Structure formats: C-alpha cells, structure tokens
C-alpha cells in the first residue's frame, strides 16, 4: 500500500465484474501496488425478510440469494430446518437432492469456464462452453420445471420425482457433456495463449490458504484437501464413491484444472446416483411449526463451503437466519493474490475465485472492544437512524405502510 501514482476503480460497474463490487487498485504504471475492497452493493435484506415469512415461504426466498447456486442455498437451509425438527428424510429424496446438486455443479463450472475465457479475451471458449451448458439447463428444466431456481426442495424432502423415462435422457446428456469436457480440458492445458495468461497468476500459497480461510476450488488448487462432501457428508454423499480433486499449482491454472476435474467427478457421481436410486417416498410430512432449537448446516456449493444458521422459536416463522456464502471467505484472498501483479491480471484473478457477490452481501457486524464506538450501531438504533434520515428527505412513512401490504395473511 506504499508508493502509488493513481487509483484505478474497478467497479462498481465494470465489464470485468458480473456483479457490483468495488476493487480500488493502487497502481504505479501497470503494476498493482495495493488493493482495497468495498462490498455491500447487493445487500437486499434477505436475512431480515426471512424472519417475517414462514419456513415454506423462506425456501423460495433463500433460493433467490444467488441464481447459480440456488439449489445449494435452498438445500442447506432445508437441511438446517430438518435438523431442528428432527426429521429423517427418505433415501430417495436424498438421492434426488444429490442429483440436482451435481447437475448444478456442472452448470456452474461450465459457466465459470466460459467466464474465465471471456476475461482473458478468448470469447470462443465462452460461446462453446455456454452452448454445452444449455444441455444441462434443458435437463434441469425437464426434471424440475425451470432452468434456474429449481425449487425442488421442500421441508422434509423433494417436491418432484424422477420418472424412468427421464433417466436415459439424463445419461445421454452426461455422455455428450463428458466428451466435450475432455475437449475443453485438452484445450485449456495445451493452448499456449491460454496457459500464458493463466499460469503463474494469482498465486496463493498453502499456508496463506489456511491463514485467510479460503474455501472451495480456490483452496483445493493450493493443495488443501477440504471438501464438505467428504469431511461432513450430507444428502447421499456418504454412500457414493468419488475423489476430491486437488492440485499443487496454487495459481489460476490450478483452479482451472480443479474445476475441470470436478466436472469429470460430477459425471461419475451422477451415474452412480442414477444406478443406485432407491425406491420409496420422496417426502416426509413436516410440521408447520418447527420446535425451538438452532442448527448450523454446511453444504459444498460449486464455489465452496456454504454455511447456514437457523434459529427457531416454536412458531412457523424462523427467529434468525444467517447465511455465510463461500465468496465472502474468498474475496479477502484477492488482495493477497494481486500483490505485485499487472493490471491485466486483475479480471482473471477475480474471476478465478468464482465470485458471486449476490451470495456475499449479507450483514456482518464487527464488534470492537470499545462499546461507545460511534461506527457500530445496534439494530434498534439503526432503525431509528434510518427513519429519521428518510423523514428529513421528505419520505412520509404512513403512506408507505399502506402501499406495501405484507405478503400472506
């Protein structure tokens, strides 16, 4: 953060970022001397909104935290609530959840390959991988009824079943995708212009990964073997045989290899799930009022470890829901990765952690030792402050309460 000549603001609106965040780069010529990150542009108040809706309604709200990892968030939340309620899910529901989760991982990694190609100026890779991603989206539309935001979870199981006619279609799609993925793996490893842009960029050593708390493929590319599906198996992962892909390159190239390797593993997992799919019901009756309790549940989203905390108070609405998305853990490592690198490396380094800023922007309270610190406001104080501020701008609150009627009865 020393001698710099000028500041390049990357964001909030910038062609490199798909979602708004600000990365203030302190530059000297083409070299980056330091970086400042400002988050929070996508804060929508989801955690607070969850407290005013029932658990069933919250499933759909939590699903819309992110478009690409929607099933991860919904499943994680459903798992937390089911743990509080003490529900035992039927095996078929767990297998179907796993199947949709792996299909989502395929779609997310193919999307990432395209985005990485776009950031290094190789639009052909973008067009080809996103063309193949359409195959996955069509399968998901067939199975769940929508291409994004699958909504297949419900408290106590899944909402839709897989028929026997759909299984050969899924297998055929997986075969096509596997052949195409092998081609992309070949292109990514053997094309010199791509490897010149990806190798040696965004270095993050093994020790830094552990120190900064990085999760997901970003961590696995530095040799840290951490995967919630193996460390803490949920859904059907305890009964399926698969490998955790790690790599020792510690740079963006390693992260590419990890994600392509995970694609191949996903195809393997899906074939096993479809072969071993047990018969039985797909849901268990869940009570409307969840008993008092709290639970933390973890899920391996395509970007890393997703954490949900749910606290219930015996009614049909949760008391507190907290979401910690994987990108929040990874975004702090970007400053470390960009030390003494060029401006041209910034887009691909940010893209390599697979940022999903919609997932990230929740409220984080930092409590300082000094309780009189003016920068730290409690919730009631924040509410009165914002009402006063808006009243000064001329907003009439009595009229607003009439316009927005609360959902449900």
């Amino acid at each position, binding site marked *: 953060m020393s001698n710099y000549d000028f500041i390049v603001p990357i964001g909030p609106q910038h062609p490199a970022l798909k979602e708004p965040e600000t990365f203030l780069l302190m530059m000297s010529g083409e070299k980056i001397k330091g970086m400042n990150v400002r988050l929070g542009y996508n804060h929508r108040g989801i955690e607070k909104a969850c407290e005013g*809706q*029932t658990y*069933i*309604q*919250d499933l*759909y*709200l939590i699903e*819309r935290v992110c478009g690409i990892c929607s099933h991860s968030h919904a499943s994680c939340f459903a798992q937390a609530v089911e743990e509080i309620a003490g529900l035992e899910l039927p095996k078929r529901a767990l297998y179907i959840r796993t199947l949709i989760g792996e299909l989502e991982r395929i779609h997310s990694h193919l999307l990432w390959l395209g985005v990485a190609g776009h950031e290094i100026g190789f639009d*052909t*890779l973008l067009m*080809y991988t996103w*063309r193949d991603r*359409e195959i996955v989206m*069509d399968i998901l*539309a*067939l199975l769940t*009824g*929508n291409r994004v*935001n699958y*909504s297949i979870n*419900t408290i106590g199981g899944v*909402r*839709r079943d897989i028929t026997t006619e759909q299984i050969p279609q899924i297998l055929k799609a997986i075969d096509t995708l596997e052949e195409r993925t092998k*081609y992309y793996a*070949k*292109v990514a*490893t*053997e*094309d*010199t*212009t791509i*490897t010149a842009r990806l190798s040696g960029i965004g270095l993050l050593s093994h020790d830094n990964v552990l120190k900064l708390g990085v999760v997901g493929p970003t961590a696995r590319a530095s040799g840290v073997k951490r995967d919630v599906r193996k460390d803490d198996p949920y859904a059907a992962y305890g009964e399926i045989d698969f490998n955790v892909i790690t790599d020792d390159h510690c740079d963006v190239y390693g992260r590419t290899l990890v994600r392509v390797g995970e694609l191949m593993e996903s195809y393997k997992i899906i074939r096993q799930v479809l072969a071993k799919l047990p018969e039985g019901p797909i849901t268990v009756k869940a009570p409307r009022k969840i008993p008092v309790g709290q639970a933390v549940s973890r899920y391996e989203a395509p970007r890393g470890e997703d954490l949900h905390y749910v606290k219930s108070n015996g009614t049909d609405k949760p008391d507190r829901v907290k979401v910690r998305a994987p990108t929040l853990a990874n975004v702090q490592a970007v400053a470390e990765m960009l030390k003494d690198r060029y401006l041209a490396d910034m887009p691909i380094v940010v893209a390599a952690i697979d940022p999903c800023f919609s997932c990230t922007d929740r409220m984080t309270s930092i409590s300082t030792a000094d309780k009189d610190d003016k920068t730290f406001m409690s919730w009631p104080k924040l509410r009165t402050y914002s009402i006063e501020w808006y009243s000064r701008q001329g907003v009439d609150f009595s009229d607003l309460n009439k316009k927005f*009627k*609360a*959902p*449900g*009865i």
Partner: protein
Amino acid sequence: MRWPGRMINQVLQSLFKKPATSSYPFVKAEMPEKYRGKLNYHPESCIGCMICVKDCPTGAITIKKLADKKFQCEIDLTRCIYCAQCVDSCPKKALESTKEFELAGLNKSKLKVIFNAETCGNSEAKA
C-alpha cells in the same frame, strides 16, 4: 503438444455446421412437460381453504368467495414467482402449471388474471 490456437479444428468445422442459436421469435421455443409457467385454476375443485394464499411467498394469489362453493381466483402475474408451491399445497388439485412463459406485456392491468367462476366452466375474464 503445446501450441497456440488449439481450437482451430473445431472452429473451422463450425463454419459449415448449423448454428447452435435458434432464431427465437421466428422459431418457437418448446418447454418440457411439467414446466412451471403461468398458473391455471379449476374453480369446480376449489373448496376455499386458502392454504394456497397462506403458502404463497409473495402474496400473488387471492381467493374470493362469490357464493357458496363458488370461488374466484385472482393471480397477480407481476408478483408470481412461478414456484408452484400453491399447486403442491392445494389438497384438491385445483391449481396447475401450464407451459406458457411468454407473459411480458406493456399493460399492467392485463397482468392481473382473474379466473371467474360466474360464467360457465373455467373462463378467464381478463387474459
């Protein structure tokens, strides 16, 4: 073997293949069965339990009682998120999802669909 331009084979083959893009407005896009599109309401099956209204995440559906065993359903398409939770919650299967997804329009009043049980059968007063 590492050399630049690895994709040249596929790229040159694509020159002669059909494009992967479908010219959408001129070629209709067909959604699979059980696609969660616009809702459809069968007033003869509805018993007025209002579970669908309670479970809707956005408050898009309202059921109004017109007479004994006759109900009117109003769906606000601007609020509906097409999650089909009401379809699952209904104990009498009075709601179903259709495959219709081209619902954009310029007139907001047209986006409040009322399924009126007053005229015979299942006719939409405004569509």
